[in-house]
């Protein structure tokens, strides 16, 4: 079982550019959530995808968008990058929206905006 895999591992982008991060959930999981973790802080919930729809959203602007594919993998897109978007982006997968079971996290994508 490969667990949750994220790509790329590291990424450097310029202010104003757009970025796409990818996540493959753990086998048997149908729910993917994305989190942003700034240095020295706990992860902050961005949004959750289940059945190819965004089910919940945290306090993030519309520049943050996502998608879930029929095979449950997911993408996180961030447009018009700001310096403040520099962070570790974590993907978590779970079964049945994670209502009663633990979430498993990938190793994250370290995004640096310069």
């Amino acid at each position, binding site marked *: 079982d490969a667990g949750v895999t994220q790509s790329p591992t590291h990424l450097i982008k310029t202010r104003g550019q757009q970025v796409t991060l990818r996540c493959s959930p753990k086998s048997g999981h149908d729910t993917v*959530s994305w989190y942003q973790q700034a240095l020295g802080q706990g992860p902050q919930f961005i949004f959750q995808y289940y059945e190819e729809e965004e089910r919940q959203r945290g306090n993030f602007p519309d520049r943050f968008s996502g998608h879930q594919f029929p095979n449950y993998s997911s993408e996180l897109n961030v447009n018009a990058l700001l310096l403040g978007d520099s962070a*570790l982006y*974590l993907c978590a997968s779970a079964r049945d*929206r994670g209502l009663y079971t*633990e979430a498993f*996290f990938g*190793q994250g994508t370290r995004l640096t905006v310069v």
Partner: protein
Amino acid sequence: SQQGEEDPQALSIQEGENATMNCSYKTSINNLQWYRQNSGRGLVHLILIRSNEREKHSGRLRVTLDTSKKSSSLLITASRAADTASYFCATASNTGKLIFGQGTTLQVKP
């Protein structure tokens, strides 16, 4: 926004000692989970305790939950240098969304 407040923010102990971390939260929960993070990498799930449970054990880990006080604690017994990491509590609502605390940084000295 962060729901949880973790205490202490940093903890330094000797190998073999016990480490206790506390977490408080504000709203009602479905369950509470504890995670470990090494050097800014991914989060590793440690243990999940449901809102109707009061105590749970897993190996050297012991978690308690007091829903009346909206608090939880994580005890790591007989700590090892490999336990050095950041530890986060996360509360799960009835929608599955996880809200994390700021974390406790644990250093275990050999």
